[in-house]
């Protein structure tokens, strides 16, 4: 299957779905080590739900971090 993280496609050949935690660990770093928040297909996913929220083929994750703003 394919998932998108921040608009970039990531193939996951042997799985039908993975948790948000697994997706983040595969492609980024350990969730505890950085400051960010996640949305799945445009809906917020709280940190406490990373292990139980599943990402399926075609889903899009947005991983956002702080930036300067006006």
């Amino acid at each position: 299957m394919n998932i998108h993280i921040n608009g970039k496609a990531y193939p996951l050949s042997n799985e039908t779905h993975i948790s948000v935690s697994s997706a983040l660990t595969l492609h980024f770093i350990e969730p505890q080590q950085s400051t960010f928040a996640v949305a799945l297909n445009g809906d917020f996913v709280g940190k406490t739900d990373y292990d139980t929220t599943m990402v399926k083929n075609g889903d899009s994750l947005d991983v956002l971090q702080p930036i300067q703003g006006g």
Partner: protein
Amino acid sequence: MSLNIYGQNLDSRLLIGSALYPSPQIMKQAILASGSQVITLSLKRQNPAEQAGQQIWSYLQEVVTEVNGHLLPNTAGCKTAKEAVTLAKMSREIFQTDWLKLEVIGDDYNLQPDPIELLHAAEQLIKDGFKVLPYCTDDLVLCQRLYDLGCEVIMPWASPIGTGKGLMNPYNLETIRLRLPEATLILDAGIGKPSDACLAMEMGYDGVLLNSAVALADNPVLMAKAFGQALQAGEQGYVAGIMQQRQTAHPSTPTLDTPFWHQN
């Protein structure tokens, strides 16, 4: 005299953005020079592994701690209520604050807020416990609707974001002040000069939010200081009570016993 935002008293009436400065160091110096205790910031797509966002976040945290201030996350870039609500929830998790500068843009050319989506987003966010500071146009009825929804703070624009054109419609802004006497009104966006901020305060506005006017100045630190002083001058002028304009001239010097050459 302090600014009250959702029950929080602040010494400064200036809210300042953290973007567009020549360097993080100048940003920090400018914020300190402004005296502001409310600093806006945002979220964007980044790979946490690259650590860029983490560095900026650490630096902003230092600044906020040093000024004993508050973070005001925005929803810049959102075009629908749904996008804004999602981004607001993400911001709340990261920044641990219910405060939110709500932006929902309806037009790319002048970055004009979408009043319909803005109202929808504000309604949902207030129900979800957010303390919403909506960035909106200078439309009286829109401001009234936002206030009626529970937005204690309303932030009409002076002019489009980043233009520096100042107060385009002073009549509209004065009318909003007149008709919403209990609302905390903060003029947001389009401020160019310290005198723009001063004028807003002379109208009775409670504060000013700006970014580009300071960050894009030749000397951002000095400009930040100038804005802090301009807000104080405008506020004191408003409180002191500005004289009524008159149609005809009135001599300032007493006319009784004027010199002899006027007596014929």
